[in-house]
């Protein structure tokens, strides 16, 4: 790995905005919402200072933000936006449309709890509500990952085998507003890595006019959806390739999942986002006392990395899956549900325990995660979802 250079102190929001500056998209259309507001503000300052060629559209709602990105992308532009929570919820309708029209738009998304009750802090219920929208979903552990993932997402989404949009998420406040040292790449290298957007059909190519967004009835809709599903499947390979290429070029490789001390682990937890960082501290501490524990971080939730997860957890005896969102009396919440069904294929199935934590930004502490590991190791888990750190 090359020596660390160009270290900068950046919050998650700053890191994402810097990545956007270096990507230099043709169009950014956005609307303010805590905790993502800063991304838009910082970016509009870049526009005001002439640091990007971007046409910035300060729209009147998130629905219009994504609609304008969709129009721009269909027209032939590289388009991006940023949002959180209610903003993403207002985009839901258009998220399915962006994906269905196969437009590679990247959303810098800061995870925040959904109303009601209104709350501005981090949980993952906003993106979980869009998990079947056809968007790729990348969850970041820290600002560095957010920065790197934004850059990779452009390439992934625009790959001819994929052509789907993506959300790149950070946990609200925990990452978005927390200052960290990140390694930034030189502008030129990012520019070269992302290349330019060259769509096959684009509406402003007026010498080759075409119709996009026609009504698609019983005779074609299913085939088009089938292609979209296939694109999502193929995205796994593309994400891995681009994550590897990024590593070869810049020294930080990425994959669908990240494992931590899983090789000989008897108990493991599965997490998304910043909680992975806290879990690593717990694992190091408990391993000193001889506990064989590890962790699996899901970096990409869509497409879901079922092969990788099954392979990584096949020898673990007990798995605790931590959801920062609830499925409202689904059998288990969404991440647990997916992990559970992919492990069902194993002959020797691990025991699975479900935990919901951190709703509305409730802290998840080293002690809480330690307790979860202790419960997993005790052999006394059951199938009921446990709610961590809540007054019952």
């Amino acid at each position: 790995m090359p020596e660390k250079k160009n270290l900068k102190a950046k919050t998650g929001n700053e890191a994402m905005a810097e990545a956007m500056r270096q990507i230099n998209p043709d169009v950014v259309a956005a609307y303010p919402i805590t905790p993502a507001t800063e991304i838009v503000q910082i970016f509009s300052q870049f526009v005001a200072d002439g640091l990007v060629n971007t046409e910035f559209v300060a729209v009147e709602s998130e629905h219009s933000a994504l609609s304008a990105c969709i129009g721009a992308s269909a027209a032939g532009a590289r388009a991006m936006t940023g949002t959180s929570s209610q903003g993403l919820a207002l985009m839901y309708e258009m998220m399915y449309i962006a994906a269905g029209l196969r437009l590679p738009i990247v959303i810098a998304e800061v995870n925040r709890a959904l109303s009601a009750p209104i709350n501005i802090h981090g949980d993952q219920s906003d993106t979980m509500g869009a998990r079947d929208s056809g968007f790729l979903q990348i969850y970041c552990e820290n600002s560095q990952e957010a920065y790197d993932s934004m850059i990779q997402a452009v390439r992934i989404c625009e790959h001819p085998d994929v052509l789907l949009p993506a959300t790149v998420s950070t946990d609200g406040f925990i990452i978005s507003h927390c200052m960290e040292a990140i390694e930034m790449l030189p502008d030129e290298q990012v520019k070269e890595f992302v290349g330019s957007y060259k769509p096959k059909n684009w509406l402003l190519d007026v010498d080759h006019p075409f119709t996009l967004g026609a009504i698609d009835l019983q005779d074609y809709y299913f085939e088009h959806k089938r292609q979209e599903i296939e694109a999502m499947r193929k995205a796994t390979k593309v994400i891995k390739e681009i994550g590897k290429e990024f590593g070869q070029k810049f020294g930080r490789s990425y994959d669908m999942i990240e494992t931590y001390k899983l090789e000989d682990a008897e108990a493991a937890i599965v997490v998304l986002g910043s909680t992975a960082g806290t879990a690593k501290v717990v694992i190091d501490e408990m391993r000193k006392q001889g506990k064989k524990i590890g962790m699996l971080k899901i970096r990409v939730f869509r497409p879901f990395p079922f092969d990788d997860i099954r392979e990584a957890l096949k020898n673990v005896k007990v798995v605790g899956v931590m959801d920062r969102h609830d499925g409202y009396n689904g059998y288990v919440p969404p991440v647990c549900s997916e992990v559970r069904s992919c492990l069902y294929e194993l002959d020797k199935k691990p025991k699975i325990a479900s935990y919901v934590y951190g709703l509305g930004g409730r802290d998840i502490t080293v002690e809480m995660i330690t307790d979860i590991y202790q419960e997993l190791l005790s052999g006394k888990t059951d199938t009921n979802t446990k709610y961590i750190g809540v007054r019952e």
Partner: protein
Amino acid sequence: MANLKELSKRPELLSGGHRLCAGCGAGIIARQVMMAAADKPVVVANATGCLEVSTTIYPFSAWKTSWFHSAFENAAASCSGMEAAYKALKRTGKVDKDIRFITFGGDGGTYDIGFQSLSGAMERRHRMLYVCYNNEAYMNTGIQRSSATPLGAYASTSPVGKVKKGKEQIKKDLTKVMVAHNIPYVGQTAVGYWNDLTTKVQKALETDGPTFINVLQPCRLGWGYNPADTAVLGRLAVETCFWPIYEVVDGKYKINVKPKEKKPITEYLKLQTRFKHLLRPENAGIVAEIQKNIDENWAWLQMMEECSNKAGV
């Protein structure tokens, strides 16, 4: 302005073979708008509605120019994005042509669910022409009332029954609302005045900024009339001053057609089944109210024309 002969030589950007109803005014509007626009490359955004579903049934399309649809309430926002893309790609040299942008929305997609997106796009000053083909109800989903539906009209969600007599509220005057956006060009016209429509479209497209034209569109299914009478109804709407034809250029009003003699509104109502119940004697009060609204609005418009054109205003 190109005359009819010149217009007729331009390529037809909306071809036949679409599946709008026989006698549908929406097709007439779209065709004439596109004819007036066809001297330059033009990209179209369309809101969900009759025009969209009937002209683009995959794998077919009646459009011979780049055409885009994504949802119902966001045509102006999608067009904003396309226009922003155009500016960006022109700057970076990927596009070198002079392209115009037209958005089509029905009254539902314009007055109601798409109102915010339209207002935002106009305020942001995107260079686009927004054409509302206004058939005064949600026709595509089966004639439900919109805020453009006139007082007393039957619609499937403002039905006529034992106690209710059709729509109970007066319609929103969206043209006035668009004037209040202080955009450089706002026009109102109707099917049956091709010369007025094509002239307005050409003026609007020459304007460097956001422009809006509200076109009254007889819908034979929702209004209930003989399909041969589409243009007749458009003209009657103007001759009764139910739907005055005017434009507001940089704040100055001009009434483009002044009927010599204002026809009574019953002339217009009696040809349409949506107003049939109003001709019953017990509903004379509603007709009188409609007439009163027309008279007041007509007087108001004439006053606006006079004052806005006074020197120094």
